[in-house]
């Protein structure tokens, strides 16, 4: 009898003795004729008892330990109210005979369903959370509770936290798998503090802003010092605190050359003693002189300054110079000029 006919005559897996491979259940019959691999001299009917499956290889089988039956899976013996935390106490790969769920995973066969859990590699590959069921999490947290401390109840809002603890230190830690545990970005430290919480007077604040430059955000009044020049986080933190200390003390110091500050160095536009004030006073004086003809320049100037329209003009010019030219500021300037010149 030819081997192909022998195989075609029977459907049971046990009789595929002549084939070297065992996983042929479900294959099309035409394929078996090409699979002429290892020929054995054994009979078609396998001996009952030990060898439930056909041998592999066939030749070097002398002295091989007889293979045991696997027995029924553990899921059959599991009661519904068992302690699952003892079945999966730690992170282990998926075991199909230890999980009593009818799970299927994988790409479905055409017109079929995803493969079952027995021998399914996809279920073994993906990380599972069998050891972290809610019961297990509760148990772990009960054991961890004694090591936790409570947040002080007096600091419940962010505002109170800022008031008592104004300096914020930010740093990042990285956890990943790789050849090395270290991450060089972990040494970066950001120090954030609001300048309103520091003890600075007017001159000190302006000097601090000049010293610090781009590190200050005007909208939120937060000074951010970022240090990454040292190799360790502790060193960077201490360097940031040192920088803050130095900035603070230097900004209080008044140097001799600071007296040479010109109008171009000023941070904000101030109207007093500016060309704009002189111009408006001259214009108004000339209007007045043309109209009435008075003397006593200084007194007249003071009176003019105190007039409401001149104050409005001053406000609009200051706003225009400080905030820049936008629709509202230009309109305000236009109105003020109209009022002052009675146009």
């Amino acid at each position, binding site marked *: 009898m030819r081997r192909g006919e022998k195989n075609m005559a029977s459907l049971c897996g046990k009789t595929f003795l002549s084939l070297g491979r065992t996983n042929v259940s479900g294959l099309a019959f035409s394929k078996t004729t090409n699979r002429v691999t290892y020929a054995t001299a054994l009979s078609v009917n396998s001996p009952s008892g030990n060898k439930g499956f056909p041998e592999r290889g066939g030749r070097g089988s002398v002295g091989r330990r007889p293979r045991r039956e696997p027995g029924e899976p553990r899921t059959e013996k599991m009661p519904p109210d068992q302690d699952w935390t003892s079945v999966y106490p730690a992170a282990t790969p998926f075991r199909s005979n230890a999980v009593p769920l009818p799970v299927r995973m994988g790409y479905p066969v055409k017109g079929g369903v995803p493969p079952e859990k027995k021998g399914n590699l996809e279920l073994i590959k993906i990380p599972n959370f069998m050891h972290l069921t809610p019961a297990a999490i509760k148990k772990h947290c009960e054991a961890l509770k004694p090591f936790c401390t409570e947040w002080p109840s007096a600091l419940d809002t962010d505002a109170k936290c800022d008031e008592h603890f104004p300096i914020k230190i930010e740093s990042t*830690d990285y956890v990943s798998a790789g050849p090395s545990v270290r991450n060089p970005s972990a040494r970066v430290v950001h120090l954030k503090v609001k300048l309103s919480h520091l003890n600075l007077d007017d001159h000190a604040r302006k000097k601090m802003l000049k010293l610090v430059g781009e590190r200050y955000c005007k909208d939120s009044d937060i000074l951010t010092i970022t240090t990454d020049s040292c190799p360790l986080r502790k060193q960077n933190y201490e360097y940031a605190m040192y920088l803050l200390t130095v900035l603070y003390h230097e900004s209080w110091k008044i140097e001799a050359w600071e007296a040479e500050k010109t109008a171009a160095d000023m941070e904000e536009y101030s109207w007093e003693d500016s060309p704009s004030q002189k111009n408006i006073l001259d214009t108004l004086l000339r209007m007045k002189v043309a109209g009435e003809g008075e003397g006593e320049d200084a007194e007249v100037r003071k009176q003019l300054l105190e007039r409401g329209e001149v104050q409005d003009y001053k406000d609009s010019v200051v706003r225009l110079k400080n905030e820049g030219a936008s629709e509202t500021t230009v309109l305000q300037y236009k109105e003020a000029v109209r009022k002052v010149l009675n146009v």
Partner: protein
Amino acid sequence: MARCCCCCCCCRRFLHEPDTLFQKVVVLVKAHDRAVLDSYEFFATMAAKELGIAMGKVFEPPKDIERLTLLKSVHIYKKHRVQYEMRTHYRCIELLHITGSTAQVYLEYIQRNLPEGVAMEVTKTSMEKIPDHILEPMWKDHPIDDKSSK
């Protein structure tokens, strides 16, 4: 796989130094699989609730896809290429108002149960008082004598 966290100092002396206060601890987890992150988020949020930690937002930043196009063949055949992509999914968990000890306990618990192939970044914002040497300028007690030396 070497996967220990590089942050926690094991020798914290509970009795001697005061506990640090963290205004915010942001945990960002990255993985190639969204389902794994879903389960991990459930685990982390439940652990935080059990330990009594106040949670801020828990949200999912949009994923990143890095694509590369390579030649399909070893030699010549420039017109036939093959494209690969690497997807990174994110999940962000914010914890508010947490003390140093609690943070250490929670983060160590979270990190020991981090699944395979998942990376984590922890950004801690700690609050501190203004140190004593910044309360008052030193020039009041130590006036500058020689300005040219500074």
